[in-house]
């Protein structure tokens, strides 16, 4: 082995995106090379620009001490959501590329099949592991501890580590744009295609390690959230007094704890096959590739409920707020959430009805799958009954909720269709399936996340987002989604398989054209979101809500200032009712200072999360490129960092009672100076975050 080979593993000049175009300049290679190099340049320029801007403004110290080493759940939550938005942008562009290819795909199109394979693999992997999961984890991180009346999660440093590992996985996926190629095996990575025999390159290895890093982070997050909700609720907050978003957070974290292990097993066993020549899933020597599908979907099915439950929680907060009513059917919503969580573990086979099981096995899982529709239906009725006889305001989060209720039901119905194995045999792995799961994920998960983003943004940053651009974005999402995905139902029924780069039957073209148009409208929606953020920041002084309750909402997070103080509450609340803050407002008992102020202990910053982010990224990069020295050093550094952290004894700092009292009095002054606004005026500049209590009292009578 030469020195170069030892140092660089299998990394070489041929790993650069334009190499094939330079070596063999065919038209296809050139087109694909240009696209790939363009994407790689964006990554490199983006990274350099970010580093450059931070340096230019001298913000390295600020970034390190205020954000990267922070163990404050609110900051960690915000950073997760930043990751989610960045990765959303990338994966959306990939989707538009794929739609374009398929619109022009009659007879070939412009993308090579390999490039197309990478696109659908990165699109799925990024959207699930690096957009959806970070988004929902970020929201739960930000909101849940405030909702249960505590200062932080149970394990703040582990929270930061989870973030670091997710960041590392995202970085690995971004690096795959510049060096080497990503997997072409889809987001599910089925062997034997992803075995070393058929995919000897770095692609599947990128996929395995990115997903593993993110998976370990998520497992730790699940533990963190579950223990926090079990052990850190404010005194008096029984389980049945928790806000619904916290209930869904609890069930989501239980799902995370039990569903991530099967993924770890599947990917690690695949890695053993690829790296050490094991025979878990190989074609010969006794391998059983069908077990991979079984293991992957043991994870994959609960995973989609991990994705949707937090969104359901957001809707359960948003719909009552913007209907001016209490949530209808709290108990049934709680029961439905628990039933969904439990049932999600008994349906996984419906992802591989066609793998060859007997009809008896298939129908068992088919019936179980259809049963999951029932609790979801209960929830939809509860939300509709919440709106009934309410006074609806068409705020952006409410528009997302309305779009959700109508579109998600359609997707759910297509799911019931797919739950029938006989029908599934016809449409499995066609665009019908693709339409179904996008129909669940976009109106279900994504609208929920965007609604939550809009709803809690003022709590995070102290000012509201611009409503007009938000509305534009929401409407573009709703109509763009319909145009992009409803044609896919038809295409699937017409026999168009998924993950297909080109086709030869012109009957598909009109549908593809409409779908492309829809995709471009979705892209417009994303641009509107970006504009909304820029405009909101520019107009922030006019839209500040220092009193903290811009929407006249009911849970505890709205009972403190906006932005919330580091320590959340000056004194931890003692809860006596469900919808604690709303009840207090109705009885004129809100905004009362505590009996006495005490010193507050908060956890100190820790660099462990960022250290493990770097070592994790380096170790996995080394694994991908077979740079074994790098793997060894990075793993050693990981172990050393963890051991070092165990020796740290000084991990809390005290915020003196006087400082807490000053903060609180300053806030009370802002509340006193604020003019109470009725719900109809909540988008006006006058809304300083104080709700008009007369209106609330009237409604309560």
């Amino acid at each position: 082995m030469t020195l170069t080979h030892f140092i660089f593993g299998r990394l070489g000049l041929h790993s650069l995106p334009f190499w094939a175009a330079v070596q063999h300049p065919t038209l296809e290679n050139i087109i694909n090379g240009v696209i790939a190099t363009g994407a790689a340049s964006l990554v490199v320029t983006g990274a350099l620009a970010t580093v450059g801007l931070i340096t230019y403004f001298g913000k390295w110290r600020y970034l390190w001490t205020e954000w990267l080493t922070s163990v404050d759940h609110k900051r960690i939550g915000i950073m997760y959501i930043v990751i989610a938005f960045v990765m959303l942008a990338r994966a959306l562009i990939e989707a538009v590329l794929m739609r374009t290819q398929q619109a022009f795909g009659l007879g070939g199109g412009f993308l090579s099949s390999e490039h197309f394979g990478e696109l659908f693999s990165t699109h799925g992997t990024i959207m699930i592991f690096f957009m959806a999961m970070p988004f929902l984890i970020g929201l739960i991180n930000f909101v849940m501890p405030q909702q249960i009346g505590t200062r932080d999660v149970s394990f703040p440093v582990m929270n930061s580590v989870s973030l670091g590992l997710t960041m590392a996985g995202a970085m690995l996926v971004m690096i795959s744009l510049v060096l080497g190629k990503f997997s072409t095996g889809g987001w599910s990575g089925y062997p034997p295609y992803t075995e070393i025999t058929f995919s000897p390159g770095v692609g599947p290895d990128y996929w395995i390690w990115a997903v593993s890093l993110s998976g370990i982070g998520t497992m730790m997050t699940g533990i963190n959230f579950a223990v926090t909700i079990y052990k850190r609720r404010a005194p008096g907050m029984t389980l049945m007094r928790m806000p619904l978003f916290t209930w869904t957070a609890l069930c989501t974290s239980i799902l995370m704890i039990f569903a991530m292990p099967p993924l770890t097993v599947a990917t690690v066993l695949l890695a053993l096959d690829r790296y050490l020549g094991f025979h878990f899933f190989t074609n010969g020597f006794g391998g059983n590739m069908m077990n991979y599908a079984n293991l992957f979907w043991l994870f994959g099915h609960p995973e989609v409920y991990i994705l949707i439950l937090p969104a359901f929680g957001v809707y359960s907060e948003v719909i009552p707020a913007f209907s001016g009513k209490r949530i209808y059917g709290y108990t049934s919503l709680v029961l439905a959430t628990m039933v969904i969580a439990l049932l999600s573990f008994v349906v996984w086979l419906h992802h591989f009805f066609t793998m060859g099981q007997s009809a008896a096995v298939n129908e068992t899982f088919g019936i179980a799958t259809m049963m999951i529709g029932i609790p979801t239906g209960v929830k939809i009725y509860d939300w509709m009954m919440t709106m009934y006889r309410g006074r609806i305001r068409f705020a952006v989060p409410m528009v997302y909720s309305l779009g959700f209720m109508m579109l998600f039901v359609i997707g759910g119905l297509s799911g019931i269709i797919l739950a029938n194995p006989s029908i599934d045999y016809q449409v499995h792995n066609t665009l019908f399936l693709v339409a179904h799961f996008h129909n669940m994920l976009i109106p279900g998960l994504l609208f929920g996340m965007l609604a939550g983003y809009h709803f809690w943004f003022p709590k995070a940053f102290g000012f509201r987002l611009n409503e007009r651009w938000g509305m534009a974005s929401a409407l573009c999402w709703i109509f763009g989604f319909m145009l992009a995905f409803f044609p896919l139902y038809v295409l699937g029924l017409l026999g168009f398989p998924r993950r297909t780069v080109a086709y030869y039957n012109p009957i598909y073209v009109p549908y593809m054209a409409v779908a492309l148009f829809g995709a471009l409208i979705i892209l417009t929606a994303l641009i509107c979101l970006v504009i909304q953020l820029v405009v909101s920041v520019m107009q922030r002084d006019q839209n500040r809500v220092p009193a903290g309750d811009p929407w006249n909402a009911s849970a505890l997070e709205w009972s403190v200032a906006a932005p919330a103080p580091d320590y959340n509450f000056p004194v931890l609340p003692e809860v006596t009712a469900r919808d604690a803050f709303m009840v207090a407002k109705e009885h004129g008992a809100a905004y009362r200072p505590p009996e006495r102020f005490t010193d507050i202990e908060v956890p100190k910053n820790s660099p462990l999360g960022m250290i493990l982010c770097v070592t994790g990224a380096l170790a996995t990069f080394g694994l991908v490129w077979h740079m074994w020295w790098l793997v060894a050093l990075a793993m050693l550094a990981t172990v050393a960092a963890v051991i070092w952290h165990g020796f740290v004894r000084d991990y809390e700092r005290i915020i003196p009672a006087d400082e807490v009292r000053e903060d609180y009095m300053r806030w009370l002054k802002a509340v006193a100076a604020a003019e109470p606004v009725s719900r109809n005026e909540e988008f006006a500049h006058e809304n300083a975050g104080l709700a008009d209590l007369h209106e609330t009292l009237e409604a309560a009578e």
Partner: protein
Amino acid sequence: MSGNTLDNPGFRLRASYHHVNREDEVNFGFWVFLMSDAIIFGLIFATYATMVGATAGGPGPKRLFDIGSVAIQTGALLLSSFAYGMASLALRYRSGRGKVIAWLLVTLLLGFVFLGFEVHDFLTMFAKGGSPDRSGFTSAFFGLVPLHGLHVTTGCIWMVVLIVQMLCYGIDDDVRLGIQRLALFWHFLDIVWIAIFSLVYLGGLA
């Protein structure tokens, strides 16, 4: 705590204290982690069960397993669990740092005995043609049993780290919590070993 909710509708900011017990929280969190680990082991067990016949013409359990060595490993690990129990008692009843460290060293020694015999077993299996790349069966075996061995190794490293922490800090709160959590880990690993020696070794040799 006056319970008249009419006086305190919704919530009140009263200096409520002592409602989070850190010991309880930390140990419960570790239990949750152990349960996720149990799922990982359980699925690899299930994989093993479906692949135990996939010998692809290569050596099978009767050829590869050595019941004597497995008996020694089982005895060592069981005794080590007991030794750790003695360390836990010494911790709980404040017998002093010396006793705790002594019992942990006994546990560690027995852990090394376990690992030593196990590694020797693996090398013997390789020599008989039973390396993991030989068949689905050997892959499944080497996916399961060394995973347990890796956990034991991690536990040993953790034990050494705790001993060093005790020498540096004495038995302070964090050391105490560490010993409690390692106890859970160590006993959990012995339970996993019960499943391994029963299902894999005895089951294969029956």
